[in-house]
């Protein structure tokens, strides 16, 4: 493309945007609203992911060692746990430590435990706290190590862990469906709106064809117009989401402390990386689809 033509195309695109003022505003509005919904949903999904990630990381297997197990069996058990490919972290908790924890947990009522503290009197067991590399593996791994010699019993929050994983999986699926649905809707809406601006200029396109314009010569201004509208339509939701999310994070963190939130900077970067190319792409795609029908002269 020659520089002269490029200038002409950009000029035509800008002129057309200004000439079709209301139509341009409508197109920008459609893109902005669609991308705003999409972006908001992305934020929710980011944070749900963060939250479930957080919960998952707290999921662990507690393996209580059989009191009857001898020194030999205990060493063998430790060796097997360390070399297990699906486990990433293990921590030995002696029964004294377990007692300390229990006391701390009971707070004011810790006196009830007086008398259970001695080496012989402690009813608690030595244990290992284990984490799997992939949180979803927890059930399988727990069932496997249950049968190792020297294991008293294994606790991994069965009955809580499985539904949680099912729930987070479902949320992620719904989020994905929403995003795909909104994306498709956006392309339709934008193609439709831009088709109107193309329709207004169908006479111009026809004359261009008669005086010997190539199809690409006709297309380029519309493509620039579409991508420009798409870009503005993407910048608006990015700004709204940036400031809106900052306010939301501030409010939530000063009112509900324990909910982990993605930092606004990270979210904005992610949102820009997605929405800006998407807006420009949607605008271009809408233009190309719309012009095609009018090129057949």
């Amino acid at each position, binding site marked *: 493309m*020659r520089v*002269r*033509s490029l200038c*002409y195309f950009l000029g035509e695109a800008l002129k057309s945007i200004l*000439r079709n003022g209301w139509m341009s505003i409508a197109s920008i509005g459609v893109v902005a609203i669609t991308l705003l919904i999409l972006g908001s949903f992305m934020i929710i999904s980011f944070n749900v992911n963060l939250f479930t990630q957080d919960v998952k990381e707290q999921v662990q297997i507690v393996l209580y060692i059989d009191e009857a197990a001898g020194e030999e069996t205990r060493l063998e058990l430790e060796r097997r746990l360390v070399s297990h490919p699906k486990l990433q972290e293990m921590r030995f908790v002696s029964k004294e430590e377990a007692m300390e924890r229990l006391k701390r947990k009971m707070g004011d009522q810790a006196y009830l435990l007086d008398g259970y503290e001695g080496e012989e009197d402690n009813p608690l067991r030595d244990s290992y706290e284990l984490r799997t590399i992939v949180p979803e593996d927890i059930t399988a791994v727990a069932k496997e190590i249950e049968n190792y010699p020297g294991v008293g019993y294994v606790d991994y929050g069965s009955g809580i862990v499985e539904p949680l994983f099912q729930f987070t999986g479902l949320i992620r699926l719904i989020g994905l469906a929403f995003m795909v649905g909104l994306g498709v809707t956006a392309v339709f809406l934008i193609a439709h709106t831009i088709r109107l601006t193309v329709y207004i200029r169908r*006479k*111009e396109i*026809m*004359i*261009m*064809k*008669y*005086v*010997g*314009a*190539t*199809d690409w*010569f006709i297309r380029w201004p519309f493509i620039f117009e579409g991508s420009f509208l798409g870009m503005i339509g993407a910048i608006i939701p990015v700004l709204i989401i940036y400031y809106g999310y900052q306010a939301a994070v501030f409010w939530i963190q000063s009112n509900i402390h324990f909910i982990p939130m993605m930092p606004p900077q990270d979210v904005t970067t992610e949102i820009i990386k997605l929405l800006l190319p998407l807006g420009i792409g949607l605008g271009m795609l809408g233009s190309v689809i719309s012009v095609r029908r009018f090129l057949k*002269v």
Partner: protein
Amino acid sequence: MIEIYHLYKEYERNVAALKDINLVIDRGEFAFIVGASGAGKSTLLKLIIRECLPSKGTIKIFGRDIARLKNREIPLLRRNIGMVFQDFRLLQDRNVFENVAFTLRVTGASSREIRRRVPLALGLVGLKEKAFKKPSELSGGEQQRVCVARAIVNRPAVLLADEPTGNLDPATSMEIMNLLHDINVRGATVIVATHAKDLVDHFQKRVIVLENGSLVSDQERGVYINAR
């Protein structure tokens, strides 16, 4: 320059718009194509600018069978054929200068070229003073002159006019026809589709008569024959 052999055009099955047309128009000729509405005049012009393809037969322009042009070659063909319409087809939101410059812009002409050529074309049609008026501020005759200027500004070898005087009063029609004649004298091949009998008779040029899609008469220095 334009050679047409056994040309047929059907828009729908078995409804013939043109039947077995044979015609050769030489470089520098001036020809009228006459006939009642629906006789096939416009169809013939549309086929010449490759707006549609023949159902059968051949059209050669500048020695090339235009049915065999690749899609990207069609614009190049049209840059060599100027087109004037009954309804002018000017862009209402642009002034006269920009309407005429349009033809040059699509070919990627430089703005220097445009500033040089557009006034020449406007001078030729006598509208130099109205270059910065909008089409809506012009009379019908003046609008048609703009249309002619737009068609000739890149000096095409052929100028096609489809009922150029259809929307104009007799005096203005004569002016436009004189203008087309001038352009022919300057070297362009001019083909005018019309049913304006007075004008055709006045100019005493080649007259090709179409009736119901068939060529019924083709005379040098002819007059309008009302076949029916």
